[in-house]
């Protein structure tokens, strides 16, 4: 059963990281679009981008916590 727990941990962190990576990629695309359209708002946009990227990254970290709980058993 330990092997199955390790498999589950790998699957969990893999899918979680996929979603977070897509989210941060889309956020970066939006940031680049905004800056290229209006270069003067770059400073403000980067602040919002960092907060949004942290929120998207948190989803991968939920998966990380689940994976760690699976491995810790």
């Amino acid at each position: 059963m330990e092997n199955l727990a390790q498999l589950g941990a790998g699957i969990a962190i893999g899918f979680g990281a996929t979603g977070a990576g897509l989210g941060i990629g889309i956020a970066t695309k939006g940031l680049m679009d905004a800056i290229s359209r209006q270069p003067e708002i770059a400073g403000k946009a980067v602040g919002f981008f960092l907060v949004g990227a942290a929120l998207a990254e948190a989803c991968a970290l939920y998966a990380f916590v689940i994976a760690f709980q699976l491995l810790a058993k």
Partner: protein
Amino acid sequence: MEHWVYVFHILGRSVSVNMDTVLTMWFAMFCILMFAFIATRNLSVIPNKIQAACEGLMSFFWGLMDSMMPADNRKHVPLVASLFLFILFANLMGQLPLRIIHLKEGELASPTNDINMTAAMAVIVLVYYVVAGVIKKKHKFLLKDFSFVSIIMMFVDLLEMITRPLSLAIRLFANIFAGEVLVSIALAACAYFAPLPVMLFEILVAFIQATVFMMLTMAYIGGATGDEH
């Protein structure tokens, strides 16, 4: 990663306390209290350096509250500002070389590396915004009228009362915990200079996570006390 768990018995029940994070939490509280004491000792009209820094910090919080909340926002600044300062100090403390102090078991780590700590802060935020909303809107806090949309929104709000503290607690805990795991993996790879970029990244993460916690707290309080819904 293991905590130094201290178990004591009270009224026939056993209570376990993670002593390592309690110690570092007291240290963070001591740092903030000393900073506040030194900053407010010689107040004058012409500020010295530290007073000017603190006034800049407070005007930063006030500007942020003005941009996030429509009216009557200054009274929420104490909670928001103390949460931000405490989380920032606690996160940055994780990058101090605390492991050279050997404990009986476990190792000293950042206080936010303990889910009990972050869950307690999330529950404080939950209680605060519910109480603030009830004080502001009286009986209309959850259920504005008996239309179909309002009843559905009441259930959504009730569900959010569970998911908001859960996500607040796990987000902060998991970020700091993942940072600790990354640093220890880099340490295992090469003990010299390999963990440095990871630790620099963790300093950035410390600032971002403190900001995210503060912004979400502001958004929740603003949503509970605001008129739009």
